[in-house]
């Protein structure tokens, strides 16, 4: 009987309160930062607090989800015409373009975002059909992090400058029981980005993937085949962790942070490694980064920097508060660089000054950005339709697992590019 009573009470509560009473909402925000007490999420909370203080009467309500559920929810909201007023989204063709084409995103006025010290190419990545559809917030560079102490232990004098040298370090490190390099193999995109990077190092031409997608070049061209072969060579040489293909992001990162792997192939958003208290002090004082190596005989230069702008903010076309939304974006753009750098939460898409207390790895990343002579833009897997991204990721998994050859891989992605170009 007690159970019955409780059940009835539960139903009564559920039916009596339809939804939590909501205050008058001025702007609805959306992002993929569920953790509000650390790093980027904490930065946004601070920005929001400051914005509310500077604009009394403005209310901000945020919905946050992890990546995959977030993308799904945005799509559902778009269809149900309930998009948040301002939301964080990727500038990638594979993600933003469909929303732009569907008329869901409001074009922005570039002059509203003047004099904010954007890095080269940052704003351009958000331009579709000649209009600016979002503002970039973070810059993503593709680098290799390394543990100086482990290098010394294995007798490696300096970071490798070529792929051949990189592969040579594998034997030395393995002899000491150290995993040479780790990356997230379970999500195929890091390997896809590396594939693009290798192709650039070989050809010296960052526009080749774009051309292949536009069908003025082909993924079966020798450059791409060689890039795939280089990648396979790296894997077969035992450069990566043994369980690469089931190793997810967290597992790879922790292997590096625990001092069991000497190198970590990942993006600049990991600049916080030098300050991450969940790792030992020894690790934190020894972590640094170096530029992606050259390919012997390739035309690429070491200051060709593979960089894209992944974190962006857009405004919904059906927002009822567009003026306030744009005002929020401007405020965000002004405050984010300093706050993000202070918390080591992200590498801003705008110029920041190094601080004396910065960790070695943070300083190195700033230096790499400053020394860059050319940047690549969005990697090829995100330059086309979502279907293409799925196809190239699946093909990459097969290539990295040794199930298909480099030639078969390039054939598969060329077919996928062909299909995508016809839609």
């Amino acid at each position: 009987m007690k159970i019955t009573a409780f059940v009835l009470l539960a139903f009564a509560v559920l039916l009596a309160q339809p939804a939590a009473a909501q205050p008058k909402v001025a702007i609805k925000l959306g992002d993929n930062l569920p953790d509000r007490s650390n790093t980027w999420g904490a930065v946004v909370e601070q920005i929001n607090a400051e914005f509310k203080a500077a604009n009394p009467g403005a209310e901000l309500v945020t919905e946050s989800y992890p990546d995959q559920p977030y993308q799904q929810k945005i799509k559902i909201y778009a269809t149900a015409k309930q998009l948040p007023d301002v939301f964080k989204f990727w500038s990638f063709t594979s993600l933003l373009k469909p929303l732009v084409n569907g008329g869901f995103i409001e074009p922005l006025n570039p002059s509203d975002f003047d004099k904010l010290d954007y890095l080269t190419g940052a704003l351009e990545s958000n331009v579709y059909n000649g209009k600016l559809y979002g503002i970039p917030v973070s810059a993503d560079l593709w680098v290799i992090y390394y543990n100086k102490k482990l290098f010394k232990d294995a007798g490696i004098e300096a970071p490798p400058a070529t792929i051949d040298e990189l592969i040579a370090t594998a034997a030395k490190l393995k002899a000491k029981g150290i995993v040479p390099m780790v990356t997230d193999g379970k999500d195929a995109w890091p390997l896809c980005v590396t594939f693009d990077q290798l192709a650039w190092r070989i050809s010296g031409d960052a526009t080749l993937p774009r051309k292949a997608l536009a069908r003025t070049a082909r993924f079966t061209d020798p450059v791409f085949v060689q890039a795939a072969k280089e990648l396979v060579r790296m894997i077969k040489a035992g450069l990566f962790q043994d369980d690469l293909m089931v190793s997810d992001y967290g597992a790879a990162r922790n292997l590096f942070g625990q001092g069991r792997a000497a190198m970590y192939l990942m993006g600049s958003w990991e600049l916080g490694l030098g300050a991450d208290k969940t790792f030992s002090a020894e690790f934190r004082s020894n972590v640094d980064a170096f530029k992606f190596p050259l390919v012997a005989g390739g035309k690429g230069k070491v200051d060709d920097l593979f960089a894209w702008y992944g974190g962006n903010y857009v405004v919904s076309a059906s927002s009822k508060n567009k003026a306030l939304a744009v005002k929020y974006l401007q405020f965000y753009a002004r405050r984010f660089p300093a706050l993000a750098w202070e918390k080591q939460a992200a590498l801003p898409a705008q110029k920041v000054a190094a601080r004396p207390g910065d960790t070695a790895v943070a300083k190195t990343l700033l230096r790499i950005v400053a020394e860059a002579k050319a940047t690549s833009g969005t990697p090829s897997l995100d330059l086309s339709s979502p279907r293409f991204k799925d196809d190239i990721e699946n093909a990459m998994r097969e290539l990295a697992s040794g199930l298909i050859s480099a030639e078969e891989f390039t054939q598969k992605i060329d077919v996928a590019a062909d299909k995508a170009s016809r839609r």
Partner: protein
Amino acid sequence: MLRPGLGSRLLHAGLLLFALSQLFPLLWVFIYSIQKSGDLFGPELIKLPAEPQWSNYARAWSDGRILRYGWNSVLVVTASTAASTALSFGMAYAIARLRWRLKAFALTAITLGMVVPVHTTLLPNFIWFGWFGLVDTRIGLVIPYVAFTLPINTLIYVGQLHHLPESIEEAALIDGASWPRILWSVVLPLATPATVTVAVLTFLTNWNEFIMANTYLATDDLRTLPFSIIRFQGQYASDYAAQFACMVIVALPPLALYLACSHRIMAGATAGAVKG
């Protein structure tokens, strides 16, 4: 009772060994939950931390909004479990013991209900439920929770209701009992093992359910417990230790419920248990 002797002792030893292996996952999660995030996923399967990080639990509790989310989960899951159990009992009884022409069709239709993948219902229902104002409400989550557990619960009940001798209802009918009384006082007690199974299954399924809660709820104050784990997820790396602490907290209520209910499995069957 088993006869004492070497065979019995070996059997008991085997059962205990097996029990240790089944306890292992809980132990593993617990040990992970008191480590530092950075120490997880390392080479040792079980590594006792030098200093247990109980702060993970404090963080899980407060930053994970366990109290708020937990209350929502209790409401939603209790209501949906009760409703699903009641409705499935009714349907199963009608299918297993009453006579009507559409019986076979009903069973097939119910099986169809079990086969529909959840993901394909999210977008249409988001819009369809929205017409009734059910989106972003807790009662709006209860209804699909009932719907997705109804078919399997009905099948379980049907399996167990088959064998009851017809004389049971007939005796009560002759005595002039009404159908509600027959079902509640006569049949339901006999089906207690099935009821326990169904209740535990439904409770557990909905307690850990994430994707529908994620889709249909927007307001943070209404969210359910699985979301507490998400709150520690960063864009790339996450606060893994706190997530494990959350997982331990979330796993405890269903286990407690199971422990409390499992003895009731033996109650009800008039002919008694299969105990030698």
